[in-house]
């Protein structure tokens, strides 16, 4: 099989890889979960309520309300990114996990797909938790306006896969752990700041808006904002289509990168 083959060589093995990751998480849950549970709450209070007092939005809504879709897009993004960049690299190079699995009937494509499904799972768990926090705070701050917001949970599979795949692409070409600082600083950070999570892109100059269109997080935030406010338009379908196409491309790139890395 060529490293550039488009059709992945998949089997139930991808699911076995997912199960392996689940088993490891069940061993490590104490150290893995606490940070992920506490951080979004801190940010809601610090940015939403602290900084929010000084922010006057043109739409008239409270800053913490504006921020909600961004939080729901951003933290799950980080969950996927950590799992499939740093986490995957440890499994690839430090622990030899991939090579151990390659000796079994599980294929490289199964391994990569299992990694992505796992990154997606972590991402979705994180998203569901933040939605729960937002809904719990609803009596005080109207963070969630529409019951359509529940659709975020199933839909978050798409950005989960996308951010996992982007990260795995980088992991497949990284030669040292220290190189991840490039990935975080040059790819993830700009996405974090300029993906429409913290301030509306509509008020920015035209070129910045065009740039924003190329940022995956922007489309996620747009989509989630529509669902949370209950005001869906055709443009949201466009966001979803954009995400699906780019996810497919990065899935393929992750497969190619890892096949080239693992098959000598």
């Amino acid at each position, binding site marked *: 099989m060529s490293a550039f083959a488009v059709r992945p060589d998949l*089997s*139930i*093995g991808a699911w*076995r890889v997912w*199960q*392996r990751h689940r*088993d*490891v998480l069940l*061993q*490590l849950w104490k150290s893995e979960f606490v940070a992920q549970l506490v951080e979004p709450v801190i940010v809601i209070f610090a940015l939403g309520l602290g900084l929010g007092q000084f922010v006057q939005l043109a739409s008239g809504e409270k800053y913490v309300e504006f921020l909600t879709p961004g939080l729901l897009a951003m933290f799950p993004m980080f969950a996927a990114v950590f799992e499939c960049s740093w986490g995957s690299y440890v499994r690839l190079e430090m*622990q*030899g*996990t991939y*090579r*151990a*699995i*390659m*000796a*079994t*009937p*599980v*294929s490289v494509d199964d391994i990569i797909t299992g990694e992505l499904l796992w990154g997606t799972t972590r991402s979705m768990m994180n998203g569901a938790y933040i939605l729960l926090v937002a809904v719990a705070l609803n009596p005080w701050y109207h963070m969630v306006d529409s019951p359509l917001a529940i659709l975020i949970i199933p839909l978050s599979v798409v950005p989960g896969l996308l951010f996992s795949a982007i990260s795995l692409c980088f992991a497949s070409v990284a030669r040292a752990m220290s190189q991840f600082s490039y990935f975080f600083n040059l790819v993830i950070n700009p996405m974090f700041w300029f993906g429409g999570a913290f301030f509306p892109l509509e008020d920015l100059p035209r070129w910045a808006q065009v740039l924003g269109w190329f940022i995956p997080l922007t489309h996620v935030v747009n989509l989630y904002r529509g669902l949370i406010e209950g005001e869906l338009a055709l443009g949201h379908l466009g966001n979803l289509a954009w995400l699906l196409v780019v996810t497919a491309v990065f899935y393929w790139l992750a497969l190619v990168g890892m096949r080239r890395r*693992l*098959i*000598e």
Partner: protein
Amino acid sequence: MQQYPVEAVGLVKSFGSFRAVDGVSFNVLDGECFGILGPNGAGKSTTIKMISCVSPVTAGELRVAGMNVRKQARDVKSVLGIVPQEDNLDPDLSVRQNLAVYARYYGIPKHEALAGIEESLALFQLSERADARVDDLSGGMKRRLVIARALVHAPQILVLDEPTTGLDPQARHLVWQKLRLLKNRGVTMLLTTHYMDEAAHLCDRLVIVHRGRILTEGKPLALISEHAGDQVLELRMDAHERAPLLGEVQGIPGVAVEEVEDIVYVFGAPRATREIAEHVNDPSRAFLRPGNLEDVFLRLTGRGLLD
């Protein structure tokens, strides 16, 4: 046509213009322990990687249990048990979980796997540490666990890539003991090593590889008597002392001499070497010992040879 557990014909692996494996042919027979010996970089691990379908074959034929590694990778991998050079165990999981997770990759139902795992832990003397984290195990225990892991699916062929590299003598002997036990149970084994004593201990037949090619093939004892002689006399003598001795020895049939730095090696039949040893004035500088695979190996892979 007879079906061999492993059959390689003119096997080649190239990386760019470098031929890591350069036309290697061998068969592994049912139930035997077959060794691939060679120095680092000889192409041993590359051969193993091709057999285990993680490195594509550049040219030649390679069959495992009658299956073509190019076309039936998943099927080939399901009949192989691989013991890699490095201990790539799951450090966050317990000993037992490592085996359970691995059994799942082979699609073994859980209840079936669990019974096998307990038996395997007992066999490899790991039962008491079944719930310990892998990080807390000694090097020898980790190695035994890697071997146990390679056996979770009862493979037809166990493939071991330098199974005892980096172990202390006690741990090594325990691993050897377990491998002999497996051999007695009829497990077919393919083993690479650069430890000659390991090969002598375990292998029924072996090939010696060097720079991607096979130099010789045979049973360990036959190779020793063919290439090294049954006895080896090591003489520590300076260059000026050697001349008379070398002149004398050269005429004796079946005796070979090799000079390496400050030592003269005399290879030959027991009687001839003993007589020469008696000739040497200072017995503390003459050391007579049986020939071994290391002699075969060093003679074949070359060091200024004098015949």
